[in-house]
C-alpha cells in the first residue's frame, strides 16, 4: 500500500527532524515527553509474560480457532448454504 500511496502524493518518510534542525520548542517538547516516559512504572518481563500466558490459557476454551467447535456451530464451516429470508 505504501508504494502506491507514495506515488500518488509525497510522503514524509525520512523527514524525522534531525537534531541539528530542531527548534528550541521542539527540543523542549522532546525532553518533556522523555521525562514522562522515563517516569513510567514498569514490571518485569517474566511477570508480564506470565500474565499473557495466563490470559491465553483462561480463554483458550472460548477461542473457536484453538478449541475447535463442532462444524454445525461455525456458520462459515457449515456445508449447507445459509438461506436468507426474503
Amino acid at each position, binding site marked *: 500500500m505504501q508504494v502506491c500511496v507514495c506515488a500518488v*502524493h509525497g510522503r514524509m518518510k525520512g523527514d524525522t527532524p534531525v537534531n541539528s534542525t530542531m527548534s528550541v520548542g521542539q527540543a523542549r517538547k522532546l525532553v518533556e515527553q522523555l521525562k514522562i516516559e522515563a517516569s*513510567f512504572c514498569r514490571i518485569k518481563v517474566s511477570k508480564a509474560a506470565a500474565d*499473557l500466558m495466563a490470559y491465553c490459557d483462561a480463554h483458550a476454551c*472460548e477461542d473457536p480457532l484453538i478449541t475447535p467447535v463442532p462444524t454445525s456451530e461455525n456458520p462459515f464451516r457449515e456445508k449447507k448454504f445459509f438461506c436468507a429470508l426474503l
Partner: protein
Amino acid sequence: MKRKCSCKRHIFCLGLFCFIYILFFKMLCGPGERYLPRKMAAQEVQPSETIAKLKLESETLKTKLEEERAKLHDVELHQVAEKVEPLGQFVMKTRRTLKGHGNKVLCMDWCKDKRRIVSSSQDGKVIVWDAFTTNKEHAVTMPCTWVMACAYAPSGCAVACGGLDNKCSVYPLSLDKNENLAAKKKSVAMHTNYLSACSFTNSDMQILTSSGDGTCALWDVESGQLLQSFHGHAADVLCLDLAPSETGNTFVSGGCDKKANVWDMRTGQCIQSFETHESDINSVRYYPSGDAFASGSDDATCRLYDLRADREVAIYSKESIIFGASSVDFSLSGRLLFGGYNDYTINVWDVLKGTRVAILFGHENRVSTLRVSPDGTAFCSGSWDHTLRVWA
C-alpha cells in the same frame, strides 16, 4: 559661506541622530534598566546554548530509559512459554470469497453481528456484505479514489470511510435498499492529508482517525467537532487501534517514523513510545487483554510489545519472509496472531512461542487488510486482487 552651511547641517544631523538614539534607548530600557546592550548580546547567545543543553538532556533521558527497560528484561517470552502446550494441527481454508470490487481492496471491518462486513477499495467504492451469503447489501461510491479506511459503527447502523479526500465521512445504513446512501452522508473529520485509518469508539458518537498529516484526532460525529488531537509522530500515521473497553481510554498508533505510540484519549498525551521496527509500521492491534499490542511492518516482521513491561517482548519473523506485513490481528484468546503480507500470503503465528503455525495461500496479490470476526470463528482478509476471503 558653503562651509558654514555644511557645518550647521552636520551639527543639526548629529544632534538629531543623538536625540533619536536616546529615544530608542529609553524605549527599550524601560524604567530603571540601563545595561541593555549587554542583555541583548546575552539573549542572542541563549537559543543555541539552550538547544545544545536540551539535546544533551534528551540523550541522557533516552539512555536512562533504555537502562530502566533493560533492568527488567530478565527473561524472553518464548522461554517462559516453553512449558505451554504446543498447538495442534491448524487447518483453515477459504470458506467464502467476496467478489465485486473493481479494484484493490484496501480496508475492511466486521460488524458486531459477526456476519456483516464493510470493505473499501481503490476505485472509491465502499460495499457492505453479508459474509454468510456473500450478498452485497449496500454500496456507496465515494467522491475520491483510494478509500484507505473504513469502519463499522458499534450499533451496525452506520459505516465510516475516507481516504484521499482527507476526510472521514459517516454514512447511516438504511434498511431500504433503494435509498441513496450518499444523500445522508455526514462529513466528520478533516485532516490536511490522506486519512489512513478510522475507528468508532465504544459508541456511534465518536470517531478516532489517523492521517498522513502525522496526527490522530478524536471527533464528535454529530457536530463534526474536533474533541482532541494527538501530535507526536514525525511522519504519516498509518494505523491505529483502540484499547479493549475494559482497559480504559487509550489507543495505539503506528507510523512511517517506525514508532508505535500509546496515547491517553482524554489528555492527548503520548504515554508510551516504542521504536524497534526498522521500517514503516502498517498495522497495530491490541492483545485481547489490553496489556500488549502487536504490530506489522514493512521490515517483514511482526512484533509484540508489552505495555506494562514497556518493551518489545517478541518478534515474529523468518528468513524466508522478506515482504512487509500489511495487517495483523489476534485470535479471541490471543494465542494466535494472523499477519497478512505483501507476498500474497497469510502467516499464522503462535504468539507465546514465537513460531509460525501455518501459512495460508489463496490471494493472488498483496493482502492489504485482515480482521478476525467478533466471535473469533473466522477471519476476513482483503487483497489487491480485488477480493475478500473469509477463512475458517
